[in-house]
């Protein structure tokens, strides 16, 4: 059955690739199979990895000690009420709890690591480095960060002298986008390599 599995995998791989020629029934079929499998994967894993260990097992083994868990369970069931148009409003309670909690956490955590720490990381003395490459680099780092932030500053018209930092900021952004561009190309090609490797090695045994 392992061989059959590889043929199955090859069939699905080629069905998706056929989209490159044009949209066709094979692609449409493979795509919907993907959607279906992915949905049931989530479902099965949610049941086995979350609901059973974190909820039902706890309630099953020690119901009295875990009575408080009935609250999130009720809230969870209210969440499912979203499916019923008339009772949709009930899902707002669990939503509010989740949104409130995660908003507060992400506010604290991202302010610390994306604001405070980034700010501190930019406070460097460029002249403390020995190699000229690092000195130039650190100066670029400071200037680039500040001008980049200024580019996103909307309370001032970018005229006259204020045009300069904003212009420099956009240059840095462009360099960074160029880097992202290169890395994205890299990533996409890698994925293709993986698939061709599967076809040539596991399916056709052309390479070993």
């Amino acid at each position, binding site marked *: 059955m392992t061989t059959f599995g590889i043929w199955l995998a090859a069939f699905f791989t080629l069905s998706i690739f056929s989209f*490159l*020629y044009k949209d066709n029934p094979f692609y449409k079929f493979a795509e919907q199979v993907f959607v279906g499998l992915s949905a049931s*994967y*989530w479902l099965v*894993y*949610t049941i*086995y*990895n*979350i609901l059973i*260990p*974190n909820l039902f*097992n*706890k309630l099953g083994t020690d119901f009295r000690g875990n009575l408080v868990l009935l609250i999130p369970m009720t809230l969870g069931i209210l969440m499912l009420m979203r499916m019923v148009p008339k009772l949709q409003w009930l899902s707002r309670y669990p939503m509010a709890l989740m949104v409130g*909690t*995660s908003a507060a*956490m*992400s506010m604290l*955590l*991202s302010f*610390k*690591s*994306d604001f405070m*720490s*980034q700010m*501190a*990381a930019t406070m*460097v003395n460029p002249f403390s480095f020995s190699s000229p490459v690092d000195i130039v680099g650190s100066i670029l780092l400071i200037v680039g960060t500040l001008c980049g932030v200024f580019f996103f500053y909307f309370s001032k018209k970018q005229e006259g002298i204020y045009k300069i930092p904003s212009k420099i900021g956009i240059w840095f952004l462009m360099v*960074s986008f160029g*880097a*992202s561009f290169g*890395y*994205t*190309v*890299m*990533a996409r*090609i*890698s*994925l*293709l*390599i*993986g*698939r*061709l*490797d599967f076809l*040539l090695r596991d399916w056709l045994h*052309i*390479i070993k």
Partner: protein
Amino acid sequence: MKMPERTVIERRIVFLVLVLAVMLPMLFPLGLKTQSTPLTQKVYDLIESVPAGAPVIISFDYDPSVITEIQPMALALIEHAWQKGHKVIATAMWPQGPQMADMAFNDVKEKLKSQNPDAKLPQYGEDYVNLGYKPGGLVTIQGMGRNMKAIFPSDITGKKYEEISLLEKVRSLKDIRYVISLSAGDPGLRDWIMTAKGKFNVPVAGGTTAVSTPGFLPYVSDQDQLHGLLGGLKSAAEYELLMGYEGSASRGMNPQSVAHILILLLILFGNIRAARKRKMDKLALEANNG
């Protein structure tokens, strides 16, 4: 309606050329070697610096769509951690993660077995454990910082947390010596940096797809928010190099390099063509006016 057809045909030709550019170097490897970079070395050094017996987390925050890039990292990192005698705890912020973790553990064990059939292989529950998937991203990680057992009452086999011997001394994230998140997006490395490092001060390193690599670099600074970063197939190949073997990532670097050159050539030709067209349009305009 002439235009669309030409577009479509052009596209198909480019597609075909790309397939060839990737396939040929696979069939006839060029034997190109890769070179290690500081960010990869930093991850390697982090693992090297931690003594044997220390509990560590490798988080599998990706799905099969990126296995080509991330799975080789997982293999190399697991092998390295086992070599150093670390107790590897696998977690997952993506539902497909636990499955990826299991595949990786089995592959590394198989490799170790084929290298030395008599060697003592790492034992499940003693040397490594797979705790499975939990949703919630940074909220969940924050919970791990308080109490690991509350988040993971049992592992994926259903065994209770307190019955797993390697977890005996691991009460919270603070007992972990380093976290490496193999991450393909959200939730993933960013949440580990913010929470495990930002709140609980546990060293965090990462392996990401090349797409998100540039965005993580600001975290590699004197603030040590990120102890090194593996970005894409190239870094995976570098890690294999540091580990002293050639795996799927190193093999992939041959077609990868050729395909990059192809893309660059395509950009060049595209620009030449566009410049020509602009010139022609200009001439036509002048002819019309004059």
